[in-house]
Structures are given as structure tokens and as C-alpha cells.
């Protein structure tokens, strides 16, 4: 039954369907070809993965601006280890992910232990680690990896489904499991809803924050590995501005900027909308600068809707 409640609950998916129809018409069907859909799934995979960690952070009413620079640093460090030191691909990936998780923990120490506002703390680490990436790479691209490294970004299962898309789905499943089936997921919502009450009720809020920022770093690192594999070359500018795409996906997916509200399925929809929007605009030959304008407006509208809906009554 199509009633107003149904429309309200599934608005995000209806927007996604409307977007597909519009781009399909505007591109004379090119947008909905199998090849393009596979292309979109590849394109969204890395910021889809990164958006999982960001979801956790925004759920506790914080923000992580360092995601873009973690992606860049992982990109550069992993490539550097493999090319300059001949480190085994899996070892390099492991070291890079451990480093990304460590950066997340550094953010957590600044936010939870020192008490620096998340925006400032993660902005500072964004600047620091972007600089570190430049220092390691010298501003030059790093290429020449083991051909097997393509598994994370270029290979496809049965020559059809990109491995990176499968990885994204698995990460979303894990994220959804954490949120809905574990105590930690409950703690994320509780801290976002009322941090002081959560603390008084016996939750060790700072420990949960460490976990959240570590997960955010880890997922950003994994996104960096996927991006590196896809591009087959590391660049010290690759993650610049990516955090805004990720934040847009998460907020568009219904995760409230007030904290404590949001689901992983909504974030999946947000990721698909932004991915399709980017792909559709590329197909329609929209310039990169216009794309930035459109994405910025989408973020402003998504946050605006969230703020306005908060002023109304919950149904």
C-alpha cells in the first residue's frame, strides 16, 4: 500500500529510483547498461567502505575529517612498502591497515582523552597525515605493483562482479551486524542519544569512542587499499576532499547530525545515490567543478532536511 508513512520511510530509495530514471532518459539508456552498473559498483566501493566508519562516528554526534588523508596515506605507504622495499603484498596491506587503525586511535585519544572537539582534532590529523603522505612519496606517483594486487580493485568474480563491490557488501553486512546485533552497536546509539546518561548507566564512553575511531580509521584504510588497487598507482592527492563525499553519503542516508539516529541500510542508499549522481554527471559530460557544486548542494540539503525534521514531531 502506498501511503504517506511508506513514502516517508522509503523516501531515500525512491530518490534513488527517480535518479536512475532521470539519468537513464538523459543518457539514452547508457546509464542503465550492465557495463555502466558494474562501473558504478566499482566507483562507489571505496567511499562505501569508508562511509561505514563515518556512520559510527556521526552516530555519536562527532565527525571524522581525517578519512581523506588516511586514504591517501594508506595509498602511499602500501605502495611504498611494496615498490621500494619489496614487501609482500599481504604484509604491506596488513601494515597499512594497522597504521590506519592506529591513526583512528590517535584521533580517539585527542577527542576522548584530551577533550579536543572532534572537528578540530580530526582536521589537525588530516593536515598532519596529508603532509606525511607528501613527505613519503615526494609528491611523485608510485607504481609497479605485483599483478595480484589487482584483486582489491580491478578483478571480478566470474568475470562479472567486481571483488571490490563484494568487499563493500561484506563490510556493510559487518557494519550492520555491529550496529544491530552487538552490545557495542547499542552503545553507539546510546552515546549519540545522551552521552552523560550513557556514562552514568555504566558504559565506559571513552573506550567505546576509541573503538569507533579505530573502526573509522580501519575502514578508511581499507578504502585506501581498494582505491590503490583500482588506480594501480599511488598519488599523494588521491584522498583530497573524499571525506566530504563520505559525509554526504552518510547524512543523505539518514544518519542524523544530532547523533543517535541512523541505519546502515540508509547509508547504502546514500552511497548509491552519490555514486549514481557522480557517474550520471560524468556521462552527461558535466564539468568537475559543476559536480563539486552539485555535491555541496546535496550535502547542504541533506543536513537541512535533518535539522528541519528534528524540529517537527516524531511519528
Amino acid at each position, binding site marked *: 500500500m502506498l501511503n504517506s508513512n511508506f513514502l516517508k*520511510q522509503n523516501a531515500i530509495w525512491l530518490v534513488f529510483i527517480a535518479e536512475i530514471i532521470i539519468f537513464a532518459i538523459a543518457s539514452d539508456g547508457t546509464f542503465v547498461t550492465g557495463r555502466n552498473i558494474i562501473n558504478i559498483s566499482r566507483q562507489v566501493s571505496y567511499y562505501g567502505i569508508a562511509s561505514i566508519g563515518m556512520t559510527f562516528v*556521526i552516530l555519536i*554526534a*562527532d*565527525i571524522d575529517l581525517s578519512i581523506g588523508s588516511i586514504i591517501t596515506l594508506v595509498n602511499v605507504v602500501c605502495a611504498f612498502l611494496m615498490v621500494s622495499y619489496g614487501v609482500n603484498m599481504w604484509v604491506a596491506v596488513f601494515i597499512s591497515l594497522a597504521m590506519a587503525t592506529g591513526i583512528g586511535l590517535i584521533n580517539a585519544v585527542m577527542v576522548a582523552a584530551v577533550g579536543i*572537539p*572532534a*572537528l578540530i582534532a580530526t582536521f589537525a590529523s588530516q593536515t598532519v597525515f596529508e603532509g606525511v603522505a607528501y613527505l613519503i612519496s615526494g609528491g611523485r606517483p608510485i607504481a609497479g605493483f605485483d599483478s595480484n594486487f589487482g584483486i582489491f580493485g580491478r578483478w571480478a568474480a566470474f568475470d562479472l562482479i567486481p571483488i571490490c563491490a563484494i568487499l563493500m557488501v561484506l563490510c556493510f553486512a559487518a557494519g550492520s551486524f555491529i550496529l*544491530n546485533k552487538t552490545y557495542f552497536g*547499542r552503545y553507539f*546509539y*546510546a552515546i549519540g*542519544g*545522551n*552521552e*552523560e*546518561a*550513557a556514562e*552514568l*548507566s*555504566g*558504559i565506559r564512553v571513552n573506550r567505546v569512542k576509541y573503538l569507533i575511531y579505530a573502526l573509522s580509521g580501519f575502514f578508511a584504510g581499507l578504502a585506501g587499499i581498494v582505491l590503490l588497487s583500482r588506480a594501480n598507482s599511488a598519488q599523494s592527492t588521491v584522498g583530497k576532499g573524499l571525506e566530504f563525499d563520505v559525509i554526504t553519503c552518510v547524512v543523505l542516508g539518514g544518519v542524523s*547530525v*544530532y*547523533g*543517535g*539516529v541512523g*541505519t546502515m*541500510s540508509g547509508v547504502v542508499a546514500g552511497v548509491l545515490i552519490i555514486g549514481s549522481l557522480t557517474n550520471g554527471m560524468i556521462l552527461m559530460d558535466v564539468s568537475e567543478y559543476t559536480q563539486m557544486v552539485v555535491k555541496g548542494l546535496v550535502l547542504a540539503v541533506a*543536513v537541512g532536511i535533518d*535539522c528541519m525534521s*528534528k524540529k517537527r*514531531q*516524531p*511519528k
Partner: protein
Amino acid sequence: MDCPLDKEWRPYYEELDPHKRFALLERLEGESAQDGQSFRRELFKARYERRSKPERIADLWLWKCVYLPGLFRRRKLLKKAAKSELLGTLEELRLRRELSFEERCILYWEFRNTVRRYLSTCQGPRYGRSLFGLKKATPEEQKLRAGEDVWKMSRGIARSAQLEEALSLWCEACRDEVGAYDEAAAQHFDELDRDFER
């Protein structure tokens, strides 16, 4: 529910700190000749004692106040889980038992103390922040949000799970406490209840 509060027990139900409450309980139990002492102690244990770590005081009922509004928001996604969670909550809050009038009164005041403790946390700088923690909420916004939270943890979740009767004592205590807390918050609570009906 018409539950008069005995004058000598008033400080016990007004105090929010668990350690001070325990000291009061010890003292008042010795002085008072009233019935229901063991029930009070049982409630104290049920509320504050974590089974896995009895030495560490937690407020398990306050946790319900924090958790239930979140469960209300996700009730459509977690239909079955929400229902079983609520049935567990009924057990923990001693609402599935046959209680005498006096025991119901003791439970009612314990609920009010729990909600009062929750409301006491709704005035801090972190409560009701928005825009990724950048914008602090005004006191008025905090009161409205507190009213909304209390509605969600009581009438909201009870009505959406059709457990209004089983949770009636809890809901009543929540409404009475929010009424004592702030008029605007109580009004918001009632508005939400009316809107839900529609």
C-alpha cells in the same frame, strides 16, 4: 496512580547518587517500621548491581532510559528484536510480577527516581548537540528534547509494541516525573502522545 510518598523516605527517592542512596537505604531501613523493606533492597540490587561485575556500580535502569528511545527509533527495522527486548525489560523492571499495592508504590517511586536521574543529565553541554557536535542546544531545546526522549522510552515504545498495559506503571511514572521537571517538556510529551494517536 495515587501513591503518597512517606516523609521519611522522601530523601531516598530524591537522591540521585547511588552511593548516597545506599547509605540512606541502610539508615532508613533501620529506623523505619514500614513494610516493603526487602522489596526496596531487591529493587536497589536489581537497579545498580551488575551481575558480571558486582563490585562496579552501574545504573541498569538508567541504561533502559538511554536505550529505549534508540529502540523506539529503530522499532520498524527491528520488530522482533524490539518486542523481545521489551519483554526482557518488563522482567528487569519487575513489571511481570504480581505486586501488592505497597510494592507497586515502591516501584513507582523507584521509576520516578530513575527518570529524574535521566532528566538530570539533560542539562549538560553535550546533550542535544547538533551539526556533528558543533552547535550546542539552548535550554529550551534541551527541555523539549528531554520530553521527547521520555515519551519515546515510555508511551512511545509501549504503544508501538502494544504493551501499554504491561508498561502502564513505568509510563505513568515517566509522565509524572517529566511533569515535575518542566511544563514545556510535559506539554511536548502530551503533544507527541496525541500525534501518535493520529
